């Protein structure tokens, strides 16, 4: 609940004094703008928002907002975001990072974050390369891609983030693209409003170390909005079917939104705390636990 419900916020209220220093043309500039707009639409004051990121170019994002920010350890944005949500459930919690941070170094955390279903939003800026360290193969790099760590072309199939997270049972899965700033902001807003774990994959090409086919011109040729396909976002199987096209088609929109969201972990913890509190000793008798009668 907002501490100041009568106040309205504008996108600029979430912009910090720190100026982004991504490469010019990077899609992450649009992502941060989209986040400002989504937060303004929701209207929670910056001090009620916690923005947690990992390590990488895109993980700088938490510093560019006026929310509480924590640029954490590589791949650990989700565990820290969950800890923060659990200790202060009233905060609106966002986690963000790149594809390497999320699906390789932090890949093991995803399954548990999804199944735990805390009420938080995870945004991945997927550029199919490790950009900050100058262009190594990342978990979403296409098979055959030549990089300094795969000079003869990658032999591995890329991770499919959409299918992966849908398969673990996430209640909200969407994909956006920085060229569609208004559409992306609307998706972020929807994700933030979803009561449970929400995931948004943003195709944000690396203008410096990315491949030509992965730049915006190449992506435009394969872009289709899910609305235009008549996709029903309450149909998880249809969502999984469409998610299989990752890497070949760029589908924008909400793949899946659980029409009956289950209780979140944070709700269940509060319920459990309330139940246990009934049988708890009053404060003045706590020492009785340690003193033999």
């Amino acid at each position: 609940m907002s501490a100041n419900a009568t106040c309205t916020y504008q996108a600029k209220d979430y912009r910090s004094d720190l100026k982004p220093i991504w490469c010019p043309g990077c899609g992450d500039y649009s992502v941060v703008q989209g986040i400002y707009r989504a937060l303004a639409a929701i209207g929670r004051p910056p001090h009620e928002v916690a923005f947690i990121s990992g390590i990488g170019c895109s993980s700088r994002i938490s510093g560019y907002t006026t929310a509480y920010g924590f640029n954490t350890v590589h791949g650990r944005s989700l565990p820290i975001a969950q800890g923060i949500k659990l200790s202060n459930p009233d905060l609106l919690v966002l986690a963000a990072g790149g594809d390497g941070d999320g699906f390789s170094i932090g890949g093991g955390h995803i399954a548990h974050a999804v199944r735990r279903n805390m009420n938080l939003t995870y945004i991945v800026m997927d550029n199919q390369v490790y950009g900050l360290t100058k262009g190594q193969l990342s978990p979403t790099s296409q098979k055959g891609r030549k990089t300094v760590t795969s000079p003869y072309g990658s032999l591995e199939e890329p991770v499919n983030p959409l299918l992966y997270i849908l398969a673990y049972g996430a209640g909200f899965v969407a994909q956006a693209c920085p060229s569609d700033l208004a559409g992306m902001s609307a998706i972020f807003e929807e994700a933030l409003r979803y009561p449970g774990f929400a995931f948004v994959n943003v195709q944000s090409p690396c203008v410096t170390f990315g491949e030509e086919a992965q730049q915006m011109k190449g992506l435009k040729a394969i872009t289709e909005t899910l609305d235009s396909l008549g996709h029903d976002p309450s149909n998880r199987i249809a969502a999984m079917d469409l998610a299989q096209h990752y890497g070949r088609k760029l589908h924008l929109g909400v793949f899946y939104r659980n029409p009956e969201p289950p209780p979140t972990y944070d709700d269940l913890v509060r319920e459990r705390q309330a139940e246990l509190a009934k049988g708890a000793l009053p404060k003045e008798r706590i020492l009785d636990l340690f003193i033999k009668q």
Partner: protein
Amino acid sequence: MAIRGIEFSRLSLMDALDLAILVEEEAQERYEDFAAQMEQHRTPEAAKFFRYMAANEAKHGLHLAARRAERFGDVPRAVTRTQLFDIEAPDFDAARAFMSPRKAMEAALASELKAHAFFQSALNAVKDPGVRALFEELRDEEVGHQGLVQAELAKLPRDKGPSDEHFVDEPTAQ
């Protein structure tokens, strides 16, 4: 460029005006974003040009908004920004580190060509005579804008210095 849920064959004049205003608004925002990126990366000439383009888009938007207000007052909009993207705005990845004024103008010219193609393509489906006249006017304005940018480009010397690619560090193994 993309349009969602808008059928040009059934577009009213009010919706067409609103659509045109939103197109200008998107382009203005993208140019402002580019200008900020250039300023941050110490490329003042390109930043200045993008600020100039943003101001032009704002001016066109205001002009269209005045026409819309005169004709339809404060009737609420039926179209929204989420229904369109990348119509007249330059592609977000058209900005480059240390881009020359020539490169900046080329990016603007590409977006003017894109806008022209959009209105031309929409005209194939438009039926309302008022909308047709408006879109023809906007399409022809894009031709005028292209001419202005091309004239400015002709005044510029060819880029002699290192291109933006020269500023990219060599990839390294981890």
